[in-house]
């Protein structure tokens, strides 16, 4: 008995040791790359933070750029006191929120019908939706501009140089990809769930609102985050479609109002950009748990 256990032990220990060693190496390498990437990606925001705390004199002075000698919140205070910046912030927020809502109102029913209601051409249409997303934004804004001009000629409605016109434009960028995310998510919902609902007496609309939307919350949140990010950080379109200061959104506003000719107000630019990056960050932080939580667990076998 004792002999047996000794023999067993001696054969087990080296295996365990080598497993531990390979695990340690794997961890070491993971940490090495994680630290490397963290430095790489966190350096710019850190530099922004440092610069935003300096006055313009210190920024242009020849001192260590990574150190703040006379920290000041003047840049932030100046931004909050300027009506322009608050207008940009408001424009951006309203646009982003409405775009998210509009995107969801279009994408959810679209994804549901494309993934569940087999109709003539549904597969082609689903692929088409994805292909639309592959067309670069930069190629779309000239035709869109043309369309706006055409609408103006036809109806007299002026869409150019109005911040709310961006609400009409952004869904052309967000809907295809959001739909695509949701198609994939809906496809992962077991087919028996709709069949059970169908037998229980639900119509397609009830199936969508009572089963699909609640079950697909993580996927819907992922799509919402995507739509929000696109709407919030879009630069090219607002630059092309809006010009008056009161119509600008945050990214364009910062660049156009804080750069006067060849004078760069670096401190305020950095402060404004940092504040502008905050809302998406907060949203990510809040919704990440939701996003990761697999709500379908327990629906079927498992």
């Amino acid at each position: 008995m004792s002999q047996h256990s000794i023999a067993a032990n001696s054969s087990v220990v080296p295996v365990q040791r080598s497993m531990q060693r390979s695990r340690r190496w794997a961890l070491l390498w993971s940490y090495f790359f994680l630290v490397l990437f963290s430095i790489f990606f966190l350096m710019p925001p850190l530099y922004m933070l440092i610069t935003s705390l300096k006055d313009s004199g210190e920024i242009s002075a020849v001192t260590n750029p990574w150190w703040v000698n006379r920290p000041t919140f003047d840049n932030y205070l100046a931004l909050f006191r300027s009506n322009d910046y608050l207008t940009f912030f408001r424009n951006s927020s309203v646009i982003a929120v409405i775009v998210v809502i509009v995107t969801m109102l279009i994408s959810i029913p679209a994804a549901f019908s494309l993934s569940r209601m087999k109709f003539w051409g549904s597969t082609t249409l689903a692929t088409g939706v994805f292909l639309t997303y592959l067309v670069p934004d930069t190629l779309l804004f000239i035709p869109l501009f043309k369309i706006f001009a055409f609408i103006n000629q036809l109806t007299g409605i002026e869409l150019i140089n109005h911040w709310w016109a961006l609400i009409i434009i952004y869904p052309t960028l967000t809907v295809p990809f959001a739909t695509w995310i949701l198609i994939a998510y809906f496809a992962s919902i077991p087919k028996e769930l709709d069949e059970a609902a169908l037998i229980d007496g639900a119509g397609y609309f009830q199936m969508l609102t009572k089963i699909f939307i609640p079950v697909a919350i993580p996927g819907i949140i992922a799509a919402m985050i995507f739509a929000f990010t696109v709407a919030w950080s879009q630069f090219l379109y607002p630059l092309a479609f809006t010009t008056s200061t009161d119509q600008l959104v945050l990214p364009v506003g910062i660049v156009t109002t804080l750069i006067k000719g060849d004078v760069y107000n670096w401190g305020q630019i950095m402060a404004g950009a940092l504040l502008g990056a905050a809302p998406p960050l907060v949203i990510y932080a809040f919704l990440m748990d939701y996003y990761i939580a697999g709500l379908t667990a327990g629906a079927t076998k498992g």
Partner: protein
Amino acid sequence: MAQVKLQQLVKNYDDTPAVRGIDLEIADKEFLVLVGPSGCGKSTTLRMIAGLEDITSGDILIGDHVVNDVPPKDRDIAMVFQNYALYPHMTVFENMSFGLRLKKVPKPQIEERVNAAAKILDISELLQRKPKQLSGGQRQRVAMGRAIVRDPKVFLFDEPLSNLDAKLRVQMRTEIKRVHQKVQTTTVYVTHDQVEAMTLADRVVVMNAGRIEQVGTPQELYHFPATKFVAGFIGSPSMNFVPCRLEDSAGELTLRLNDQIAFPVPQEKVARYRSYLSHTSLLFGLRPEHIMEQRPHREPGHHTFEVVLEVTEPMGMETMVYFLIQGVEVCGRVNPLAGAQAGQAITLVADLTNMHLIDEASGKVL
């Protein structure tokens, strides 16, 4: 309460036939099991009854109404799925009451019916839990509860026990039978497990390749299979089939398996088998339980033969023995006390009163 009728039911997927013309009548309150290997069309048939699958041709009647084009929700059926298909975001109570809530049944009535069903299934304590907090067996009960609550004309079960482990499956099998006895609703149950079919069913429908092979009570199927397929499918371990020929030696009809082994055909079967005397493609069919060790008293129809055992499998209550006749592996069931050993020459007894003669060409039991 309703009967279900299938008339010349056909289902083709594109050009591949899945169900090739089924005629079936399911009586009111009957527990009918569709059984067959995967791809035999049993699930498709069930899904057509449910209305989840379009019918290519033929008719389905529930009660006296043709329901071919009636949507599932208006057929007054309830279905239990293999993977339960519980709504993951709803509690057990919400799951069970979903159908009633959609029908706008008044709240007190909903509560009453859910509680009654929960009581039948012994899940009253689980009503406030979410599906992911339940074990497999509990989920299965909830899925059944969802069906019972709606008090439908017909229950449809699509392999409801396949996802459970062996022990729980046996337990839930009894549970399903108990529930059926209580609620007395016409039930159509699909499974690939013949044991489940035999234990649950009032009548079993054996399907193969989109057709019905045989319909009958479990006892009928076991003792009087109509085809080789049914004979081999029902019973575990399955029936032995050995090529044979009929010989007439001095007026006695004999069944010859090989040079050494030949049995006299039992008297009651002689008249029936005599016309196949010159037939070339005959199979001798005998279940393992009808091949046993030699016993002190010789019963009528029992005949001894000698073989060399290839493999023995002690199962505790009995020992399965395997040997070759004409290169075909044959299984027998002997008393463990008989001390059968692999490699041993042994005398076994064949109970010929339970034999079957099969025409291999047509697959029919003669």
